[in-house]
């Protein structure tokens, strides 16, 4: 028994060390730092305890307020759009067609690459002044648009990058769609429900557990989006795509305000926590965890 415990402990030790070192410690350290005026280039001992001063500072920080607004806009626009887009593609890829496996793979590919720096770089070329899109516009006889140079269109380009990464949500939706028993649709067919009504009355309600999961994941990920604005727009122009994670990064590693940056991280953390909590609280009103089980068949 003792031996088993020892061996078991050895297996989990790497994770526990990693967790303590790279998750728990930074988590606590960032909170402590957020209560100080620590600067990146100084000795940590030089930092002074400033209480909630960093948090107070945000109230008067126009850049923070701008960034917060941009972040909310980004989240509120991308999350519903991405969920809808991922669901649409999942529904299409759920059709029983010849070669559908190929298309499922093909549609998933952007997500493997989508979040990477490489795609963000490609995105920058696509939306650049002499980029692919403007060249295509030129061929069609339209004038080019300064995609990354205008506040509205710069945001548009990073929103589009997010939608481009619909694959992971799509795959989860697809799994959810496959879990809905075929005979429910057959029963609805016999009852005369159109495909559209079947979607609204059967598919969507039965997909709500998956929708809920995807919603939480997307909220969390969207609030943490960094690659897009960092590589494509650098947060600009006029801070129009200056998402909070980018501001946190710049405060820490560009302006060396480690304390303030940590405080911003904690604000972002609390915002995500609140959104997640509200979502969890709301699920009893719209999520149906009621997959039909056959209790007479025994095992589940």
């Amino acid at each position, binding site marked *: 028994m003792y031996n088993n415990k020892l061996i078991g402990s050895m297996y989990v030790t790497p994770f526990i060390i990693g967790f303590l070192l790279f998750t728990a410690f930074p988590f606590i350290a960032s909170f402590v730092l957020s209560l100080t005026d620590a600067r990146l280039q100084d000795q940590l001992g030089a930092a002074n305890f400033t209480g909630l001063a960093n948090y107070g500072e945000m109230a008067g920080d126009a850049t923070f307020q701008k960034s917060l607004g941009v972040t909310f806009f980004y989240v509120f626009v991308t999350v519903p759009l991405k969920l809808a887009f991922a669901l649409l593609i999942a529904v299409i890829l759920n059709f029983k067609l010849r070669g559908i496996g190929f298309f499922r793979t093909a549609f998933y590919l952007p997500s493997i690459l989508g979040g990477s720096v490489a795609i963000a770089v490609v995105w920058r070329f696509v939306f650049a002044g002499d980029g692919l899109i403007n060249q295509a516009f030129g061929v069609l006889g339209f004038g080019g648009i300064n995609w990354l140079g205008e506040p509205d269109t710069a945001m548009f380009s990073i929103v589009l990058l997010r939608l481009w990464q619909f694959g992971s949500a799509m795959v989860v939706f697809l799994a959810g769609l496959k879990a809905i028993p075929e005979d*429910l649709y*057959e029963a609805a067919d016999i*009852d005369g429900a159109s495909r559209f009504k079947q979607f609204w009355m059967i598919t969507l309600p039965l997909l709500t557990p998956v929708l809920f999961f995807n919603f939480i994941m997307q909220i969390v990920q969207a609030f943490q989006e960094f690659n897009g604005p960092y590589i494509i727009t650098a947060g600009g122009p006029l801070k129009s795509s200056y998402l909070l994670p980018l501001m946190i990064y710049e405060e820490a590693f560009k302006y060396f305000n480690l304390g303030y940056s940590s405080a911003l991280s904690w604000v972002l953390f609390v915002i995500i926590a609140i959104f997640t909590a509200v979502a969890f609280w709301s699920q009893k009103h719209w999520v149906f965890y*009621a997959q039909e089980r056959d209790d007479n068949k025994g095992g589940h």
Partner: protein
Amino acid sequence: MTNSVKLTDVKKSFNGHEVIKGVSLEVKKGELVVFVGPSGCGKSTLLRLIAGLDTPTSGEIHISNKDVTYAHPSKRGVAMVFQSYALYPHMTVADNIAFALKIQGLPRAEVDAKVAEVAEILQLTPLLKRRPKALSGGQRQRVAIGRAIVRQPDVFLFDEPLSNLDASLRGQMRVEIARLHAKLGATSVYVTHDQVEAMTLADKIVVLNAGHIEQVGSPMELYRRPANLFVARFIGSPNMNILSVKVAGAAATTVTLETPQGLLEIPRTGVVATNGDTVSLGLRPENLHVAADGEASHLKGHVVLIERLGGETFAYVALKDFGNDPVIIKLSGEADLHNHQEVGLRVDLDRAHLFDAQGLALGQPLGAAPDVGAGHV
């Protein structure tokens, strides 16, 4: 009476593999017809073709004298009860029953009234506000039936509706379905692999095997006059005993069989056979009796196993010189018998069945018992 459902040479192939091989069939109005057969015989496929969930490769399907071969399921006037019940898990019992009516756009008051009426018939009224997961298997089954009844279809289709229930509940629901059919008098097509369900529920049984019909008839017709070995074996529990014997002589009203234990003379007409032909002698377990001491017997053997079910006893008797398979005899619950006991068996020769080498019934029983119609509870 008009035909409610008519199939004409219906064939269905999946990926070049023919699973329904030309089925023609008529179901009369108000009849409860049971498709029965082993798994993979095509009975569920046939039902799905009638429902419109699949389309036949060739042939025609008429429902209420309309050609519905390629019609959408909702345009056929059918309602279906699925094996899995197919209840919408996110809807209450009331919403499940009301679903089709709401889709039809019926006024709310009318929907409510119909749901209430159906719930009353099926004793679901106290459960209307519940979701399917809060129901027992039998209750779910009733909801599934309710969902079909509420639409007042021309034809009810049942796809193995009781196979997910445990044995006692199955018996109970079987009685309920029979009672419901007697009350509503609706045309029904019922698929099952359980011959007991088929025997007890059906006005007419269709025995299917490997995509074609083996025999159609009333339950007692199939029991008394199976057209072939397949039906003979499939209908009846325990199964009919089949013994391999040789024809030793066929006259107008009798046929003489040569068995390893001597000759047996069976009253039977119309037997066309050549002496020496190998044929199958079919004996139902209840048509074999243990001869009393000193009483003459047709066959001899010894008991290898006794199954006591309380009300009745099944004795497995190995017949002398007949090979390894014992015959099963159905006896009374009190039958005084023990293992290894040497017994003589009397055979109700006038109830014996005979099949040729191809498995087809050979001749007719003499003065075949009149048909007994299907009774309803």
